[in-house]
């Protein structure tokens, strides 16, 4: 089996000779030319996903005013940021809400503005109202500041998202007899609809199920700019799903990424404040990961199509909120994208929460960057834990 190295691929990118295709294109190339030829001819496969990713946020350093302040509480456009770190450092989390938000007191709450919207305003260069209080120390005497900042005025703005790019996700349905408002959208009663949220055959981690290429230091498309994989994401429990009856493999699930990048070079097109009725505020994040086709095995995984990738169907009316194990079966992304699936004998209309057109756009942008020699592949310092490592989730007792 022929092997390529990162160095060889980067040399080809430098000389403008690298063959770079999107995951969609690669599926067609493998069908046409066969796996062996496709894996020899193609250097890089680009992927993409654009969807709400709650575990996101940004570290900000505002710079010191005169006199100096040790910020004890911070608000950005009325949304609290965490400042239990150094004096003028703060972390604004995507799901944080204003203290006067009515939340779900008039259910379902609207959650029109939260931390994700602050991040969108910052990255768009819009003015953001900063309020901070301190308790006064000998070195940091100031007790209060209210001012307006933009992302250009502050020292650093670093997007650091502890869990993004979920490898796969539940297809959410509602078996109960009332409408429910979830992070998977509005789910109508009695199997009224089914929502899913990955870009399937374009989704980064579905194309590298055993983490043969993605690791710490992998350079990626993040929020319209360049970012890096910092670590595995929280709740990174990668596994290969299998059909409980036949034992047939149904594609991967469970992997996640922690990602980092300079917010100042990102774009509001790829970081959008997002609101889920009755659930909360969050941030939609655009991520694209390049997969180097180092060998035929990696090529085979990267060529997985919507028909070979599956999502578990989960009831959000009763089972999910009560952490009841099991599911209502598996459904392929090809079925999900067709517009209807069958659950418990009933035909159910489907809808995505993850934008497939935007995922395709990201894969296309990343492809162009690499073709133009503006983006080189970074060999990971260390690969992420794979299904073979057997990581599993813990239950919080209480």
């Amino acid at each position, binding site marked *: 089996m022929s092997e390529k190295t990162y160095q060889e691929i980067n040399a080809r990118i430098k000389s403008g000779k690298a063959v770079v295709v999107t995951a969609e294109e690669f599926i067609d190339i493998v069908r046409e030319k066969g796996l062996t030829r496709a894996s020899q001819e193609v250097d890089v496969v680009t992927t993409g996903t*654009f*969807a*709400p990713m709650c575990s996101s946020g940004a570290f900000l350093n505002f710079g010191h005013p005169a006199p100096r302040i040790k910020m004890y509480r911070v608000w950005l456009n009325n949304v609290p940021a965490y400042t239990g770190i150094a004096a003028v450092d703060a972390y604004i989390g995507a799901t944080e809400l204003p203290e006067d938000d009515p939340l779900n007191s008039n259910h*379902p709450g*609207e959650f*029109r503005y939260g931390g994700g919207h602050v991040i969108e305003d910052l990255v768009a260069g819009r003015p953001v109202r900063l309020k901070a209080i301190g308790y006064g120390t000998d070195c940091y005497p100031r007790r209060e500041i209210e001012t307006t900042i933009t992302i250009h005025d502050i020292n650093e703005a670093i997007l650091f998202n502890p869990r993004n790019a979920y490898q796969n996700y539940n297809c959410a349905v509602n078996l109960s007899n009332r409408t429910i408002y979830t992070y998977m*959208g*509005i789910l*109508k009663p009695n199997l*009224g*609809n*089914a*929502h899913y949220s990955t870009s399937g055959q374009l989704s980064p981690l579905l194309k590298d199920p055993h983490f043969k290429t993605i690791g710490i230091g992998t350079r990626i498309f993040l929020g319209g700019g360049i970012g890096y994989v910092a670590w595995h994401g929280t709740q990174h429990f990668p596994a290969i799903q299998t059909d409980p009856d036949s034992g047939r493999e149904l594609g991967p699930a469970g992997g996640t990424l922690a990602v980092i990048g300079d917010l100042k070079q990102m774009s509001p097109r790829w970081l*959008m*404040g*997002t*609101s*889920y*009725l009755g659930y909360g505020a969050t941030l*939609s994040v655009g991520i694209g990961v390049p997969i180097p086709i180092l060998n035929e095995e990696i090529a085979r995984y990267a060529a997985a199509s919507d028909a070979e990738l599956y999502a578990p169907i989960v009831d959000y009316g009763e089972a999910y909120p009560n952490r009841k194990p099991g599911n209502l079966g598996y459904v392929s992304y090809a079925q999900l*994208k*067709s*517009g209807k699936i069958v659950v418990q004998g009933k035909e159910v*209309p*489907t*809808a*995505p*929460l*993850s*934008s*497939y*057109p*935007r995922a395709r756009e990201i894969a296309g942008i990343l492809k162009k960057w690499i073709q133009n020699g503006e983006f080189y592949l970074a060999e990971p310092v260390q690969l992420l834990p794979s299904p073979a490592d057997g990581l599993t989730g813990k239950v919080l007792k209480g």
Partner: protein
Amino acid sequence: MSPRKIVLRFGPEISDKPIIYRLVKDYDLVMNILKANVNPQKEGIMVLELSGDNYEQGLNYLREQGVTVQALTHEVVRNEQRCTMCGACTAICPTGALHLRRPEMEVVFDGDSCVVCQLCVKACPVRAMEVKL
């Protein structure tokens, strides 16, 4: 004349009467019912497209029966800059005005099929659907 979209509201005392039947039978109007609902208080609401030579006479008949008749003046529009084409609205929209074009998976908004129920306005995660008066 081209069909006009109107909203009819029926009080509980008339919501069980065959009023629409008379509109067709006696006034020869062409209709396309876009939305119809009777709530637990037996109040009815109907959104329909209506046309025909006896249009005004038909509306007068409705008013005589105690039906409130209003033109459908609100309009839902899509902020194209904001819409990410995710699709979260498409299984919520009751008329299919918002639907996915396959295989591209692009969200299409067909304003002619919209009955301004406004479910999408709240369901849209990035608030791309707006009501215009």
